[in-house]
């Protein structure tokens, strides 16, 4: 099912972390998938399933213990700096410099991505407009709300107009308005030809955005492919039922936490 032309290609990715006691914890175990340009690929799974670790390896922040990751034909471990240029990575926690303003942060990252000055200014102006950052572009980030911070973070991830977006729980903790804006924004980006790798445990987002997805549970990819195919396979219509039937219904995977909000 692996089609050629995946701009992100992950093969047999395994990541093992050492525990402080010397034992080892396998966070990600033999995961393979690929994401094509113009596609939104969803990584779905409960907290601690290994989604974030997968995204970090894909973005070149962690080295895989085994397996390989190619970004646009380049292997991540060989050229992390080169690969990072092609990726706009949105981290799960909105880590913004509290003492800098959104504009300063965007300018800073524009320089880190080696954008020429005029191009950077134009790009920043457009992002500020798109994401409605204008009203608070001169405030320090420490004073912004979660939704405002998330918009700035997204602008930061898009600063170099990368062909690949890696979004780690982009709507976590957002209100309905920001949530909708960001989901729409993701759709537009994919429509513009970008490959989007999205991790979430919000099932309705997957339903809305993704045609293909991977289900991660305990570090393993338990199902991978088109949503419709998975629905047919399991004979369930609702995504949560699909998921539960795949991991085994007896296991309460989502614990006490609501998968969507």
């Amino acid at each position: 099912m692996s089609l050629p032309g995946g701009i992100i290609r992950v093969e047999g990715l395994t990541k093992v972390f050492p525990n402080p006691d010397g034992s080892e914890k396998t966070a990600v175990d033999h995961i393979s998938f690929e994401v094509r340009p113009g596609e939104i690929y969803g990584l779905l799974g409960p907290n601690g399933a290994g989604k974030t670790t997968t995204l970090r390896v894909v973005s070149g922040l962690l080295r895989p213990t085994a397996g390989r990751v190619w970004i646009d034909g380049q292997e991540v471990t060989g050229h992390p700096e080169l690969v990072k240029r092609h990726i706009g990575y949105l981290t799960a926690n909105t880590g913004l410099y509290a003492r800098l303003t959104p504009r300063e942060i965007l300018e800073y990252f524009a320089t880190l991505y080696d954008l020429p000055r005029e191009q950077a200014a134009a790009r920043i102006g457009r992002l500020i407009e798109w994401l409605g950052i204008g009203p608070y572009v001169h405030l320090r980030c420490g004073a912004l709300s979660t939704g405002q911070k998330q918009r700035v973070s997204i602008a930061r991830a898009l600063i170099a107009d990368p062909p690949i977006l890696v979004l780690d729980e982009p709507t976590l903790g957002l209100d309905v308005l920001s949530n909708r804006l960001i989901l729409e924004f993701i759709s537009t980006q994919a429509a513009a030809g970008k490959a989007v790798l999205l991790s979430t445990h919000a099932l309705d987002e997957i339903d809305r955005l993704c045609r293909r997805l991977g289900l991660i549970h305990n570090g393993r990819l338990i199902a991978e492919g088109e949503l419709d195919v998975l629905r047919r396979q399991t004979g369930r219509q609702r995504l949560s039922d699909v998921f539960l039937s795949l991991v085994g219904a007896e296991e309460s995977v989502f614990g006490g936490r609501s998968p969507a909000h």
Partner: protein
Amino acid sequence: MRRFTRIQTIGRKELLDTLRDRRTLIAMIFVPMVLYPAMMLGSLQGFELQVGRLKQERYKVAVESEAAQRWLRAVIDSDPARRPRATSLPAEEIVELHERGELDVPSTAPALRDESPAEAARADVRQHPPEYEIVVMSQADEVRAQVRSGACHAGVLLPGGVPARGESGSAQVTLVLDQTDIRSQIAAAGLEGILKRLSEAWLHERLRRVRLDPQFITPLETLQEPVATPEKVGGSILGQIVPLILVIMTITGAIYPAIDLTAGERERGTLETLMVAPVPTVDLIAGKFLVVALIAMLSAALNLLSIGGTIWLGGLGDLLARGGQVVIPLNMLPWVLVVLVPLAVMFSAALLAVCSFARSFKEAQNYVMPVMVAAMIPAVVGILPGTRLEGPLLIMPVTNIVILTRDLFTGRFDLFSILWVTLSTTLYAGAAVAVAAKLFGQEAVLFADSGSIKTIFKRRFFRPADQPSAAQAFLLLAVVFSANFFAQQWLLKLPGVAGTLRFWFGLAAVIVTLFLLAPMLFALYMRVRIRSAFSLGPAAPAGWLAALCFGLSTWVLAQGWFAFQQTWLPMPPEMERAFEEMVAALGGVHPLVMLVFLGLLPAVCEEMFFRGYALGGLRGSLGRTAAVIVVALAFGIYHHSVHRLIVTSALGLLFGLLVVRYRSIWPAVVAHGLHNGLSGLSARSDGLKPLLERFGYGLDATGYPPPSWLVAAGLLLLVGIAIAVLRPGGTAPAQTLVRGSGADAAPPHSGGDSRAG
């Protein structure tokens, strides 16, 4: 070129970020510019106030009779120091004059001619005449009781009655004082001065009567002629305090940004965002380092400015100036600032390295304290009087800068030493930056939440581990280092120990306690498995072979190296003598006993500690090579001698190689024991000396072993290294060494196979 722009960009942003932080501004500007001058001036004024009060205090003096009171009153009032007119009058007349009330004419201070201390003291008395109130008691014991109880500050007893200026003989005056009370001391000292001057006047009177010149009784007059310029005197005063203050302030300035830009950024989650950008970690750390160093320098400069300003404007200069004999060389301050640059660079890098290791602000603060202490000790060594910028001190970090600063103040320095100091400091700074860059990008530091500080202290949180953590290893290294140093110093100070066999018993106890028991107990407490933590497993035969090659060769090479080193870094004769004395203490014992003290015990204990515990703890986070190097350097430093540093560190490298190669400390123990034992026995005529001599071994006049032996030993060593490096270490691959560190990136093996070995 692009790279420099990028580092510059990072630096600019970090600087902006840091300068917007109120806490940095407080630490950097408010503290030096406002707090210190205020505190300095405040305490100075308090001091002056106190001194003035003590001087002008009214002292109560107890005497035993009315006659004594009258006499003492007259003597005090006629003291030539406070009443110049009275100088020439005989004592009886003074008493009469006083009783008629005619003595009470205002005194006029004569212009000072000489600047002798005696005259200065007189001038002081003239300016602040202390007042004495004389209280009459009925007997001597009562006088003593008064002073003892503190009711009177001093007592004057006249055992022979009221003294008169006789033709000959000497009358006795006893001053009663409470030597624990500063006021009593001052009162008594004042009275003593008055009486001394009276005695002098009477002596001159006697001499006049027998027509002798006063010079008759001083056939030899000793004078001092200080040649130091006032600037130099001022410089030496400044040199005693300012360097230490500057060292402290430079660190203080760097601490906050160093923590904030590394551990702080990690804690706030911005580090991950930053790492996403296509920027090499080295560039990131370089940009941050520039900012920390800049702020440390700014902080140092502001402190210097503040010290200068306080001295110049605030009257500290006047206090230090002691009547114009001292000039503070303020013009040296800019030069001092230049010297501080490498210091700021080194501290910034060291602090960054330490903080890069931390995952949170709090954890970083815990790591910073030892660095601060580690910096203070050599700084204090530097301000000790008499230390000079030469020999090993030239390259001793912090100490060399402190001494150079001191020398700058006194204007006694040369370009050669400045060069040495700058070069060595830059080298240390570079090493620290490299370590920082290495640690900064570590996955474990970036993301993993393991090993937080709270799990370090409570045993119930500990999970059994195969190796100590790097933090544990560093902690124990630091504790054992100072404990070892002080224990050995203490041992040498004990009466009847230095140079005897008892020293060796003491040393053995210290070594066993600190290098063997301490890590063992610590490991047990931390639930670290002893067998794996100390690499106690068996080694492959190749390991024993390599160890044999090392152990049989290094003692000859070390001997040759020492002889060579003697030509450019000669061991001071005292040190050599002390060393010989130490070895001579073992001269009387059986060679086998010597082997135990010199070979067996150090080999086992030191290998357990350094190559076992410390290396095991550090290789996880530093990587194998860096860990071996760090442990080897620590091993060298632990021998407390610059002269042995190179040899011991080199040995440390070889032993470390054995341990990481064969995953067992036993070959290293053998090599270490052979080296120590052969070094000791080769010099003993009841040891191996006769045997070795038969094979042509012997040291020539300059201490070199025969060239043939050197060549043979060198070859043997190379063979050993070749065995260890070239041949794969026969047993299990060294995989669990690489715990999570991406640096070595060896292919994964199952973690279990190491235990099988």
